[in-house]
């Protein structure tokens, strides 16, 4: 081996030539081949991979939609209709992109609940978790911007209401809104910049996803028991065990995705978005896309404008603090009999908010939204910190192998987790 070349184990001479100079094959083999992975994953561990696939689908369909989309107020609506009627498979591109956004949020919500339930945000995975929250915020921004592009009634009024959120900030609020619009109302300059940013942000997301996964490969994955693997008997190589398990999930996922796209493509959307934008008439009942509803309900639960806006942003930003709000040493809720109940209540409060967010702002929905909002924050700010102190957790199993194999624990086994960190990626 010549000086300065990577000591590649690849056999094929061409691939070997590449790998010696840029060890991507060695890296893939290490990070996705032999990568030691806890042997006890359940199907909740599919959702990270599903999210990555969805991101790829969104970028692919998005790039092809852009080839026929026109970002101008007089043409946008018609260009989308043209995509639907005249462009070959345009309907498919658009329905996949439209429902892909919903699927993306379904997947990511489950991915987040998974992290919360199994305590994946706790040390040493705090930064990994926080990068995930950044991805979620970027996704929300991207989806919001994208929804404006077809320039229907919901596009226009959604854009108006959401950009106006910034007017709640004292002093500079109104200036910020004018700056965001590039004018005195949501108009052509707004549509243009929204398209530009909608095209850009998914690539920013891709970058943060890369960091998210890099951080994951430093700490290794958490698992349903929430205890770290202690030796080879606790792990399996990622390939073929988890490539197969992820593939099984993927097939089920695509089946559901196809069901939406081919049989009920507009089920999750709002019919008013097939009416061209009209700046003079607000639809009688404006609602955001379903994935924004819980946060929208929090906004409306507060009778004060600035208070509502702060609480809405706070409801997501508080996730950043989760690793420090939860002081319990035990990760997995399997061993936290009390926290588990309160956590399920929190998930219910999330769905209640989603439900009332789609209802008119009148009683009894307002009071329900207020109760659910109160509980949403109570869980993070009071219940979780207190439980860390007072909850009596159940005894943890000795090891992953002992828990899943019982007495057979000493037989079989995968690679050592230490092997992953002994040779850091950048030196590979």
């Amino acid at each position, binding site marked *: 081996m010549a000086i300065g070349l990577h000591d590649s184990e690849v056999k094929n001479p061409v691939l070997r030539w590449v790998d010696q100079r840029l060890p991507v094959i060695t890296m893939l083999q290490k990070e996705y081949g032999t990568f030691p992975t806890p042997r006890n994953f359940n199907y909740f561990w599919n959702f990270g991979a599903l999210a990555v696939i969805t991101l790829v689908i969104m970028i692919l369909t998005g790039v092809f939609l852009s080839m026929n989309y026109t970002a101008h107020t007089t043409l946008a609506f018609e260009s989308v209709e043209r995509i639907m009627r005249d462009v070959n498979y345009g309907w498919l591109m658009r329905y996949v992109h439209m429902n892909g956004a919903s699927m993306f949020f379904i997947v990511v919500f489950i991915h987040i609940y998974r992290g919360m339930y199994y305590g994946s945000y706790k040390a040493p995975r705090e930064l990994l978790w926080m990068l995930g929250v950044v991805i979620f915020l970027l996704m929300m921004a991207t989806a919001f911007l994208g929804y404006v592009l077809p320039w229907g009634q919901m596009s226009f*009024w959604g854009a*108006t*209401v*959401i*950009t*106006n*959120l910034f*007017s709640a900030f004292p002093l500079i609020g109104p200036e910020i809104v*004018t*700056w*965001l*619009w*590039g*004018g*005195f*109302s*949501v*108009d052509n*300059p707004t549509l243009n*910049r929204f398209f530009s940013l909608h095209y850009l942000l998914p690539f920013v997301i891709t970058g943060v996803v890369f960091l998210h996964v890099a951080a994951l490969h430093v700490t290794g994955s958490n698992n349903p028991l929430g205890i770290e693997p202690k030796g080879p008997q606790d792990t399996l190589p990622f390939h073929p065990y988890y490539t197969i398990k992820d593939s099984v999930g993927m097939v089920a996922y695509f089946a559901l995705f196809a069901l939406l796209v081919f049989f009920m493509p507009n089920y999750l959307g709002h019919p008013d978005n097939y009416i061209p934008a009209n*700046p*003079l*008439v*607000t639809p*009688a*009942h*404006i609602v955001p896309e379903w994935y924004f509803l819980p946060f929208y309900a929090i906004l*409306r639960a*507060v*009778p*004060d*404008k*600035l208070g*509502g806006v702060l609480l809405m942003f706070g409801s997501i930003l508080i996730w950043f603090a989760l690793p420090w709000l939860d002081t319990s040493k035990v990760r997995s809720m399997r061993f936290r009999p009390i926290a588990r109940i309160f956590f399920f209540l929190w998930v219910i409060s999330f769905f209640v908010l989603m439900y009332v967010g789609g209802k*008119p*702002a*009148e009683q009894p929905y307002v009071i329900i939204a207020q109760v659910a909002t109160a509980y949403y924050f109570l869980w993070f700010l009071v219940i979780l910190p207190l439980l860390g102190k007072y909850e009596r957790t159940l005894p943890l199993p000795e090891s992953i192998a002992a828990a899943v194999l019982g007495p057979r624990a000493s037989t079989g086994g995968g690679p050592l987790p230490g092997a992953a960190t002994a040779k850091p990626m950048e030196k590979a």
Partner: protein
Amino acid sequence: MADSMAPQMAQAAPGDVPGTTKRDFLMLTTAAFAAVGVGGIVWPFVSSMAPARDVLALASTEVDISPIAAGQSVTVMWRGKPVFVRNRTEEEVREARSVPMSELKDPATDESRVKRDNWLVVVGVCTHLGCVPLGQKPTDAKGDYNGWFCPCHGSHYDTSARIRRGPAPSNLLVPDYAFTSDTMIRIG
């Protein structure tokens, strides 16, 4: 790392603050220049997103108010926004003027919001999150105060378009306008 050793090696001139060195000074000036430079580069980008000159130059809007009978309203466009022009009935004017200031969330007398008693001109954009309130058409819901009602999050405005109930923080905005004759107004 090298800087941390500098203080011991540098000879402080008389009158200098002890512990500071020429290098600290150079570091700070360099950082200050860099900050100004970055600001200078960022500004054109930020500023390019603000309303462009053609948008700012949008003409004012003229409205012929002669066809608007008492009790009727029209909606006109001004800078991409709806403006409500309402010819109020005497009853509505009386209603607006009999409200004690203490009952108002954003206190303003009706007199201060109009130029001629019966004519009310306001920007038809809810001060909560920007929806267009209902109440322009005779068949619209007018809310509990007989003015306008914003369906988005339930804000009620009175016959002077002042906020009375709901999440909106302030009254519907009165734009700059002038009566150019008895039957014409110019907005903007």
